[in-house]
């Protein structure tokens, strides 16, 4: 069970910024999916160690997606745990028709949307240092800050570049937090999680055409939110 670590999972992540729909990623993705489906089937048959491996396999990815959805690390942690708990409760309903992660992600996304509807809060969160959260509380995202510093040092960025990148990311997160839940969900599934259209359609139970249209509108909404920043910072390619 402990052989599946988060590091191993990160090695299996698709390349950043590239949707896993390409041919090269497709083969690796298929192998990974087959192994995950096998774990799920074992867990459904009563092999609880298999479900423990699933938890280790998906927890970082699921936590990241839920954090982008709700904006609060603590709430994202609770939602992640609740997602795994409900997944085990409902594992009998897993038919293997979709990816195991898609199946779990759907549970988590529904929980996140329900949580957003309950709270009706606008969240603003930061990747660096102390900042004001969406609920008005000042908190420090240590993990994100450490990650930013690590990536910055790895890239050999200058402090000014690192600061500019952190500012840009913060603007994007703020803009995401101001979007409604449906638009935020499709953007996170597509651009953060790297889902293909079919996976997104499975999670949202939408036709492909409707899904693409919603994704386009979500991008327009995000562009409207970031318009002041884009006019100054973003240079058209």
């Amino acid at each position, binding site marked *: 069970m402990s052989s599946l670590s988060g590091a191993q999972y990160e090695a299996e992540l698709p390349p950043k910024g590239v*949707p896993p729909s390409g041919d090269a990623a497709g083969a690796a993705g298929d192998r990974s999916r087959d192994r995950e489906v096998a774990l799920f089937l074992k867990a459904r048959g*009563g092999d609880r160690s298999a479900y423990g491996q699933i938890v280790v396999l998906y927890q970082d990815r699921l936590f990241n997606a839920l954090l982008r959805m709700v904006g609060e690390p603590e709430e994202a942690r609770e939602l992640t745990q609740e997602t795994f708990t409900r997944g085990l409760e409902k594992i009998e309903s897993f038919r293997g028709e979709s990816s195991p992660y898609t199946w779990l992600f759907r549970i988590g996304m529904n929980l996140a949307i329900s949580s957003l509807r309950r709270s009706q809060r606008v969240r603003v969160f930061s990747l660096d240092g102390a900042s004001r959260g969406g609920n008005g509380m000042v908190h420090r995202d240590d993990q994100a800050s450490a990650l930013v510093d690590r990536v910055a040092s790895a890239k050999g960025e200058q402090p000014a570049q690192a600061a500019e990148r952190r500012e840009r990311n913060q603007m994007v997160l703020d803009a995401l937090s101001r979007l409604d839940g449906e638009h935020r969900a499709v*953007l996170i599934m597509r651009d953060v999680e790297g889902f293909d259209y079919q996976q997104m359609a499975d999670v949202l139970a939408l036709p492909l055409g409707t899904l693409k249209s919603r994704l386009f509108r979500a991008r327009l909404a995000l562009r409207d939110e970031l318009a002041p920043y884009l006019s100054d910072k973003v240079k058209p390619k």
Partner: protein
Amino acid sequence: MENIEAMLCAYIEGDLDTAGRAQIEKHLQENPQHRKLIQELIAMRDLVRGLPRVKAPLDVGESLRGKVERSILLDDSPEAGRERIGGSRWPQIFAVAAIFLLCASLCLILYRALGPTLRPPVFTENVPPKLSPTFATPPIDSAAQPSIPTKQETVTAGGARLDDRKAVAAPPPMVAPGSLAIEQHPSLVSQAQQQIVTLAQLNNVEAIRRRLQNSGYDIANATANAAPPVLMVVDSTDPPATNAQVTQFLSNSNGISWKRVPADTQANSIPTTLPSVNSDQQMLSTIAPRKAGEISASAVPTTQPASDVYIATGFTSQQADALRQSLAVQQNLAKVQVSLQSAEVLATTQPSAQPQDKDQSGAVRAGAASPPATEPSEAANSSADLAVPTTSPSNSSPGQLSPAVLMDKNSSVLANSPVEVNNSTASPDGSKILQPVDAVIVVQATAASAPAPAISITPATQPSPSTQP
């Protein structure tokens, strides 16, 4: 529209087919502002994809994995493991059931422990002096009654009483007038009932007793109950109006069932002998402590109609007060005197037991103080009629007077007659306790409108002017 948006989305994502891409690029060449928009949307996509990934906290999966591992060690059953991990609701159900059983058991214990207090309500009134004048007992003067032992007294070997002040002079707990209290002990009821027993002032006890028996009300049996009936004697100078008030009150009172005892037709028109006293003198005679020989009045032959008798069941102290108050607000100049006492005086079948004396002038001197009156119909029992029964519960002495309250037309309390209090009948908390009981209400006429009587009041402690030097 949706197709165009889907095509533009696919163009941004880079997965549009060649024909579609050529069509879009041709349109963008003709519309530079659209090209700029598409470039901004692509930039948006890259910005979101460039967001860093955040790893889950260490404890995200630890607790869940811990549950899984524990389930592996404890039980191989997948259902059991799923229940442990998924948070089975059985513990919650058991907890709720346990709480419910605990509460039910506690309620049962309390019910068993406090069972006697859950019986029909028993009314408690504070003793003196602000309460109902009818029920209230005048304040106890500890200095005036030093010899009356109480339950709280402690007598030493040398005879010195300890804690006298506490036992005798301790004020009763303050209870709001008319407030209700739960009976603490059944025996207190009878004790408290005895507390209000005073001398009757009935004009014709035997006639009333006979009328009660004829109407089917067994007064002797009723007085043997735990809650014996009470006797309310209403002396009125205007009996018809008073009767109307009593009837109206009983009819309008909730919880009271009542009936009017038919009058004895043989007694209605036969003249009787009634002391001719005016109302003021009667009041004085009621107020002043009277002893045999102190009052000498000239009996003036007059005609006394039969008293009106009502039997009411479910009579409470509040209703007794209310009735007394309602009787006190007569609109005419009638004077009403109300006294309440135990109905055991009616159950006594030895009317001749009390001595009576007649002076030479024909005035009646009774052992008690009530104005004697006789009805010819009870001529055979005239001695009983004249001698007001002094049979009271065991703790009442013949010399006790009821706390009769005289009220004028404005319902103001004129005076309370002096009362000797037997503390042994008081409840431990100093209050009197009354249950809803039967009540025998007797409305009888007084001679307030009679001519000025030849009556002289000679207090025993004050010599008459003629005897003074």
